[in-house]
Each structure stands twice: as C-alpha cells, then as structure tokens.
C-alpha cells in the first residue's frame, strides 16, 4: 500500500468517522449507576424508521407456510369429538360407525390412546407449558363441557369431519359447579400469580375510605372472552423414528417442545417444534390438548397428522379470558387526592390451572394514594382452563379502575384528566421503587390538545345531533415492561459480510422478525439487507416466550449478549496484523460492516477483511442474555392516555365510536409502522371488549353457546373509526434500545374510555361489559 493510499484511506476514515454510526457495545445489564444502551443515542440508524414487514411479500403471495400448510408424505387429517357434560365419566363411547365410515384410518379414544404423562401445567416450572394439570385422553373422566373425547384420523378432512359426527358417547354425570353464584357459595381463595400472592395492603384503606369526604364505591363486571385469532389453531405433526416434529402455531416453541417431550418420555432434543408464522397469538397460541392428541394419534397410526381446529374447536379446546367481578372504591380529599384506593374482587378459574386474571396489576403502580387494599381471589368452576388474553389483568382491571376514577371526577366536579394528573405518583406507590421512565403526563397533554378535549362538555347529555347524543371520555392504559430470563441469540457472521441472527422467538404477525433485523443491523453496523433473522424453532438456543409484551426486550438483550461475544471473537480472529490489534471489546464499536476503535475510528477493520485474513467462512457465537436485573431496581411500565368520542342513539341505545386517539408512552418506538398497527389493533380489540365481546357460557351445563364468529361478536369495519395514534418516543434508559414492548398496552384502558364517553353522552353509567344497547337505552 502506498503512502498516498494510506493517507487517502485515513482521510476517508476520518470523514466516515465523523459521519459514522459507530456504536459502542451496550451494557450487559441495567442497574443503578449503569449506562444506557448506546443505540438510544444513535439517531441515524434503522431504529425509529418505518420499515415494512420483511415477510410481507411472502404473506401476500401466499408463500409463507403456516402450521396447517406443511405438506407431509402420507399425512392424515384429524377431527375431534367433544364432551357435552361439564363433569363426570364417559360411560360408553360407540365409535363403530365412525370407524366404518369411508376414508377413516382410525378413531382414538381414552380406550386406545397411547399412555402419556400429564403435561406439566404452565407456571409449574420455567419450561412447563401444559394447559392444565390434567391427563389428556388417558381415562374416562370429563373435566369440562367441550373436552375432546375422540380423535378421528382420515384420508381427507371431510372424511374425518363426517366420521366424527357419527361418534355417540353416553355419560355418567357427576355434580358440577357451572354457575358463578354456586362457585362463590363454595368460597373464594387467595389468588396467586407467577407464585406471588395477588394482595397488597398499605395503611388502613377501609378506615381512610370511610373517613374520606369524597368517595365512589362500585362493582364492575367483565365477562368471559374467547380467543379469535384469524388463524384457528393447527399443527402438522410427524414421528421420524424416535423423534417428533411439530409444525405448530405457537408462542412458546422451546417450552412446548420440553413439555411435549416429557409427555412422551422423550429427551427435549427429540422434539422439534417449529412455528415460522402465527396468524395471531394474543396469548391463546400456546400448548393445548390438540397438539398432544395429534402427536398421540400420529404415533398410533404410524402416519403424519394434520390437526386443524374448527372455529368451534378453538372455543372447546383453547381457553379464553375468564370473568371478573371487581370492586373499586376510592376515597379522596377535596382536592381530589386519593386517601384510599381499594381494588378487590374475584376471577373464575378451574381447579386445574394457574391463571387468576390478575386485574390489580395495573392498579399497583397507577396512582398515588395514602392507603391501598388490592386483592384478587378466585372461585373455581368446572370449565375449560382459562388463560392469557391480550394484557391479562390490565385489560379488565383498567376498565374497573379507570371507570371509577371517572365517577370520582364527576363526584368532585373535576376534569378527569386533571384528577389523574393530581394523583400522579413520584415513585411506585406499592413497591416503593423509582420509575424507570414515566411520562404519562406528557402523553395526557399532547393527546388532549390533539383530540380537542377542551370541546368536551362536563355536563352529560348536552351535545346532540338529531337522534345521536355525543360524548367524550378518557382513560389511562397501562402495561408493565417485562423481560424474562432465558433468552439467547446465535449470530452467524459470514465472510460475505452477511449476518444470520437466530432467536427462539415468534412472529405472530406483529413484525417481530422485521424489528429484530433492524435492531441487529444497527447493533452490528450492517445494512438491513445484510441481516437475516431465524426464529420460531425449538432447535435455536434459548427460551423466549412471546408473551407479557417481553419478546422485544428479551430479543434485544440476547442480541446484545451475542454481540459482545461476537466482538470478542472477531478481535481474537483479527490478531496482530489488524489495525484493531491490542484493543479490548469495550474499546471498539460496530460501524459500517466492521469494528472501529471508539476514540480513533481510523483504527478499523471490516468483518469481511477479518474473516478473509483468518481464512474463516464464518464465525458463530451463541450467548444468553443477562439476567433482567432492571426489574429489581425500577418500577417499569408503559402508559397510554386514551380519548374516545361516541355517538349514542337516544332512541335505540346503539353506541358508535366516532373518534379515538391513543397517546402512548412506551419508551423508544423501534418501528413506527408496525408499532402503530399494534396500538391500533389493541384499541380495536378494546372496542370489541367495550361494546360487544362476550362468551355465552350456559351456566346450566357449562357449555359455550356462541362458538362462532357469527354469534361471538368482534368489531367489523363499520364499528371502527379512524384511530389516531401518537407517542412520546422518550427512551427508557434502563432497557435494551430504550424500548418497551407494545403488544398489549393498546387494549388496556380502552373499555373504560368508551364507558366514560357513553356516560358523558348520556348520563348513563354502565359497569358491566359489554355495553350493549339494552344497558344504554335511556
């Protein structure tokens, strides 16, 4: 190299250095005194730009393989028959006609199913994913109305469906609890969530409530909700020798593989679960009976099985959100300051699962108060195990709390936003921890200005156009920042300068694979088209649950850890002939396809150059994310300020939402395009919860009577107005990328904002969801 070339390169290096995206390594944990992720400061990368889903073209072309689209040689199709009593025994089951029907390969019942272990119920260990602590088709017991009692395998789906309609079962019914009144009479029990009691008592809330000059005290009710992802649950399952392959639609590949392995007495590595695309998760796409039944039937038949739940099947086999009855009582002084905050009540559950809808979670950190009494108790019913559904706890909890605050604002004759801001806490009111990042007041102010909140009349029922009464309401939404332990990332950096980032995470349509590619590209200093992402496969190291809105943070932390390992490995490979020679990992950063010294970017070498000189095709590192210590040091939450305008028909009570705005405070937004869809989708789901969603659970026999989208109403296009979404975009200094998850926050608070708007329109306060027209008719 001539001296001229060297000078030229130096000059170019300086210029590039000045413009560079040089990013130091991120901290490996967030603790007091630590530093924020340097990517937060980096303003010229991919993060924060709207990137269309990288898998969009694949999906539009129909080329993205979903769980029910894996063709396997010799595959047969499954159909399920369901029990029609809530509790008892199968006295007899006649499968002769089904077995004789055309195309049928076999009929499996408890009489001939392979012997299997009971799956470990979710929550009983870090890798347990079972739906309930119940054996699956191992005996004649019936535990809920709708439990699968037989699997038909046939050469086509139509043959299987027909044959299953020929199965006749008779039952010996046993006493059951299928009404809420009966369940309550048996006595509530303390709720435990993730092993922790759902109970907070600070000060003497009862006494302070009694003594408060202003108070509200009401009971709010929320019904059962069922999962209705656009893709019904499905799995394509094959035994290959002693190994089991499950092409599934799931939110937890790793835990599912482990749990299924235990069911069949296999080692974890003998079960591979893939889930490349999921047509909507929302907490419902986990391990339920159908995957295990499909695997058992495949074993019995010696052929691969495709099991696709019908829409009715989803209601019979996949649990939903359970019902709640919540008391919220708030005592306040004349200024509106909360003296007592009481949020207690019950959620229905089964004797066999671990999911007490934790509706007080959002209340714990929501508002300052002198005293608190918060608790969730459970009552037990004979029903399908209830489960997670978008923002479990907060969705229904915010309906009660944020309705009550609106009622208190009326009682105090105060603006409801001002009342909320007055009770803004300076630290977490129940844990005492400092907030990592809380800018809800900014969200309130910017949202109110944009929505035109000052046009609202405080007096209900005073705005009218023809038959239509017009009202505005607001509410706060809230959801915590989570990051669960166990995440890992594997990075394969190739000599052509391309990086493959693999994580055991899940793409349920929200854009995770796209955002992961963006984050990894910025972290590694590569353009987007030089990064590909592998995910949704249990053979990838680490455990990442797509739940609790924690996936983005978990992936972010895992990529940070793997990036550390990659830089160390590259510096080793670079050796003494590199301009990087002698530098430690914390002295360099990634930029423009290589590494450079932080305070002297002219000392750089590209990844390609390092690998070429080391004569390596690729370098592979795999690393586990740091422990989520940030959660021990800070109270970490996302928030939203929600604004709703409704039109309520004075003749019929029909409610139409005419405008909606969400102002979100969710850390730094990584991909505005996909985040906006997440927020909007959550709000749409919240509108359904507010106005129409309700599982019709027949309390006489525990049977769900509306297992179809014709009778279980979710919003149609005409029910959804234009939804305006804005955000603070203030990074949380204590999280990877400064980001919070955005999957669940969108639905929280929405039902209260709608209910409060209906009150403002009509003067009618409805405290039980959904707010159907009969409850509003004036």
């Amino acid at each position: 190299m001539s001296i001229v070339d060297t000078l030229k390169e130096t000059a170019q290096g300086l210029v590039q250095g000045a413009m560079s995206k040089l990013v130091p390594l991120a901290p490996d944990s967030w603790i007091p005194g630590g530093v924020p992720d340097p990517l937060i400061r980096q303003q010229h990368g991919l993060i924060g730009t709207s990137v269309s889903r990288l898998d969009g073209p694949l999906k539009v072309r129909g080329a993205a393989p979903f769980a029910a689209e894996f063709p396997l040689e010799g595959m047969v199709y499954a159909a399920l028959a369901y029990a029609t009593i809530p509790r008892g025994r199968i006295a007899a089951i006649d499968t002769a006609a089904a077995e004789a029907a055309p195309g049928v390969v076999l009929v499996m019942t408890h009489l001939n199913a392979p012997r299997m272990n009971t799956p470990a119920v979710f929550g009983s260990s870090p890798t347990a994913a079972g739906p309930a602590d119940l054996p699956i088709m191992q005996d004649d017991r019936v535990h809920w109305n709708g439990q699968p009692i037989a699997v038909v395998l046939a050469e086509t789906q139509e043959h299987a469906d027909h044959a299953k309609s020929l199965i006749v079962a008779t039952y010996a019914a046993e006493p059951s609890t299928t009404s809420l009144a009966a369940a309550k009479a048996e006595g509530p029990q303390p709720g435990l969530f993730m092993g922790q009691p759902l109970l907070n008592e600070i000060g003497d809330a009862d006494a302070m409530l009694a003594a408060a000059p202003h108070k509200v005290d009401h009971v709010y009710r929320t019904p059962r909700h069922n999962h209705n992802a656009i893709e019904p649950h499905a799995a394509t399952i094959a035994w290959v020798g002693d190994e089991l392959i499950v092409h599934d639609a799931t939110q937890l590949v790793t835990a599912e593989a482990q749990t299924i392995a235990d069911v069949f007495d296999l080692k974890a590595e003998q079960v591979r679960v893939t889930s490349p695309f999921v047509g909507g998760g929302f907490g419902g796409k986990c391990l339920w009976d159908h995957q295990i039944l499909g695997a058992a039937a495949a074993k019995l038949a010696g052929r691969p099985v495709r099991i696709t739940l019908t829409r009715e099947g989803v209601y019979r086999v996949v649990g939903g959100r359970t019902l709640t009855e919540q008391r919220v009582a708030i005592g306040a002084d004349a200024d509106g300051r909360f003296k007592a905050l009481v949020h207690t009540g019950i959620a229905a559950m089964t004797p066999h699962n671990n999911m007490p809808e934790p509706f007080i979670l959002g209340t714990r950190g929501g508002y300052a108060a002198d005293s608190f009494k918060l608790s969730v108790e459970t009552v037990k019913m004979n029903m399908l195990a209830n489960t997670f559904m978008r923002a479990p706890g907060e969705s229904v909890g915010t309906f009660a709390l944020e309705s009550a605050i609106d009622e208190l604002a009326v009682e105090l004759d105060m603006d409801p936003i001002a009342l909320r801001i007055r009770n803004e806490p300076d630290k977490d009111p129940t844990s005492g921890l400092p907030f990592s990042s809380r800018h809800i007041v900014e969200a309130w102010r910017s949202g109110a200005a944009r929505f035109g909140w000052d046009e609202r009349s405080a007096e209900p029922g005073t705005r009218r156009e023809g038959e239509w009464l017009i009202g505005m309401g607001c509410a706060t939404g809230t959801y915590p920042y989570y990051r669960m332990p166990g995440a890992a990332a594997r990075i394969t950096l190739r000599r052509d300068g391309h990086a493959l980032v693999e994580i055991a995470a899940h793409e349920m349509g929200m854009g995770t694979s796209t955002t992961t590619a963006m984050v990894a590209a910025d972290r590694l200093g590569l353009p987007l088209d030089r990064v590909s992402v592998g995910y949704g496969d249990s053979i990838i190291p680490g455990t990442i649950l797509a739940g609790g809105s924690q996936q983005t943070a978990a992936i972010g932390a895992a990529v940070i850890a793997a990036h550390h390992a990659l830089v160390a490995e590259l510096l080793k490979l670079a050796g003494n002939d590199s301009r990087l020679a002698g530098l430690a990992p914390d002295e360099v950063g990634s930029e423009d396809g290589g590494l450079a010294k932080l305070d002297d970017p002219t000392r750089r070498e590209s990844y390609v150059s390092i690998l070429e000189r080391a004569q390596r095709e690729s370098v592979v590192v795999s690393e586990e994310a740091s422990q989520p210590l940030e959660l021990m040091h800070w109270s970490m939450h996302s928030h939203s300020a929600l604004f709703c305008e409704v039109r309520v028909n004075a003749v019929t009570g029909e409610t139409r939402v005419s405008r909606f705005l969400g102002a979100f405070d969710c850390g730094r937004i990584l991909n505005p395009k996909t985040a906006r869809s997440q927020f909007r989708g959550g709000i749409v789901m919240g509108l359904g919860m507010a106005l129409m969603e309700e599982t019709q659970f027949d309390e006489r026999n525990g049977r769900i009577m509306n297992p179809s989208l014709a009778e279980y109403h979710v919003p149609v296009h005409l029910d959804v107005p234009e939804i305006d979404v804005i955000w603070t975009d203030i990074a949380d200094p204590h999280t990877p990328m400064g980001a919070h998850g955005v999957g669940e926050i969108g639905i929280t608070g929405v039902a209260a904002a709608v209910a409060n708007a209906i009150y403002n329109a009509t003067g009618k306060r409805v405290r039980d969801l959904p707010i159907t027209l009969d409850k509003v008719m004036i």
Partner: protein
Amino acid sequence: MTPFTYARAEDAADALRLGQASAAAYLGGGTNLVDLIRETVAKPSALIDVTGLSSEIEETEGGGLMIGAAVRNTALAEHLAVRTRYPVLSRAILAGASAQIRNMATVGGNLLQRTRCTYFYDTDGSRCNKRAPGSGCDAIEGFTRGHAILGASSACVATHPSDMCVALAALDAIVHLHGRGGARTLPFTELHRLPGDHPEFDTVLEPGELVTAIELPPMNFAANSTYRKVRDRASYAFALVSIAAALEIEGGVVKDVRIALGGVAHKPWRASKAEAVLRGGPATEQAFRAAAVAEMADAQPLRDNGFKIELTKRTLVAVLGDLSGAAA
C-alpha cells in the same frame, strides 16, 4: 358433513322432478344451507341446484314486479324500480349479511333461511324441537337475546333471521310456488308459520314444493317506505329488532300504512294491529306510540330479551316519524 348428491336443474320442471327424491333439498346460493350441512343440522341426501331458474325482474301487467326466485339479493337491491318504488325492500336487503353473501344469496333461498338460534345449531350438546322434534328446547331458559317476544310457543322461541322477508311482509308480496299439484300462489304473510307444536316446519310449503317467484303488487305509497335495523354492531349482525314500514299521509291523516317487524317472532311479523290503529287517524307521535303499544300488547319476554318490547315500540315510533316527515 353428510355425503350427498348434487344435480343442477335446467328449469322449474326439472327441479321439481329432481326434488321429489326423499331428503332432497333445493340449493340457491348456499349461504345458509351449506352452513347447516357443515354443522350437520341439515342432512340432505340430494342437493338440487336451482340457481338456473329465472333470475329476471319483470314488470307485471298490473304495475307490480315479478322477481324470479334465482335473482341474487344484490341484483334485487340494486334494481332501479325496486329502489324507487319499493325502497324498503332495497334497504332491507342491504341491511343484511355482507356484500359477498348478498352476491351469492338468492331470493328464493332468502325466504327459506332457518333460525340462527344457537341451540338449534348445537347438534351435539343441546336439545332443540326444531332440529329434533319432541326432544325439548334448551333455548327457552337459556341465552335468548335474539329470540321471540311475539307468537312463540313452549316448544320454540326462535326468530326468523331474514331482513328481506320483513320488507316483503310489509309489501303484501305474493309467493309463486310449484309443487306436485301444479302451480299456486300464496300471500307472503302466509308462507311462514308460527312454531306452535311443530317448530320443525318453518313454512307451509309441501314436501318438494319450489318457490319460483315473488310478486310485488303495485303500491304507490311504497315509494315512501324504509327499513330500520337495530343490532349489536354496525354491520354483519342479525336484527335485535327491525322495522319495515310504508306510510301514506293526506292532510295530516294516515291514509294507508304497512308495517312489518323483524327479529321478534318465528316469522316476519306483519303488524296488523298497529296498522289498524293508525289507518284513518292522525299522523302524530302520540298516535304512532299508541299503535306501537297496541302491537306489543301481547309481547312475552324471556330471560334476556325483555328490552326488545320497548326497543320495538321506540324504533317503530321513530320510523313512522321519519316517514311522516318525508311524506309531509
């Protein structure tokens, strides 16, 4: 789904011949029947596709319209003569289902829709006298938000789901039928039955009898008609209550009126009592209210649907108010 044979009829005579097979069913657009087959509520052994029958809408000599049974719902709703002379019919059709379903559904098939009672659909887990005569009714003490408040029986509380039929009931339509005994006509309001002891029969059709056309008689004041549907979401839901009405006012007096109600009974409910109260009387809100009260006098609520009595009254008053404003 139970296996069946499929044949396409060339014309009405062909359809009739094919339709005499036992457990044969005529297939229009299939928007309800195919669902019923898939859910094993209906188990026909043979499907006779009658979409090849007349799909014409023609002027009659008397100044009305003759609508072929195979006319698609969308085509009927869009037809200029229907939109201008019988707007209630166009609006009723457009209030139902979705654009895709209306494109498929035929007029004949719309008449013969079956109830959406969820207990009727639950073949495995629920008793239903309509599906299995004599087995009992699990709906009466169950979820009854969508169920009848008028004309129900202890055997059945189901409602007829059609919007279009409510308009046809108001318009004095005539059903043209072809059966073993030849052709006959029937006033539309006599086509559907109340459940009584035999809810398994939705209509008075003879086995194998075929709907060939619907005739709309001339009704000049039907140009002042409308349809209002009240439901749990803005679109794609069955009516909790619906009103089809046509109103003629002269000098502040109701000269003539037609009213039919949907979502309240086992059949499209012609509100004859309300009409009688109104006819010849003043076109005032008070009179509209009195008419509504008269029609609802015999209404019987179930556990979940008591609100429909007041909802029907209010909606009827509002509809008549709108029509009287439009007529004035």
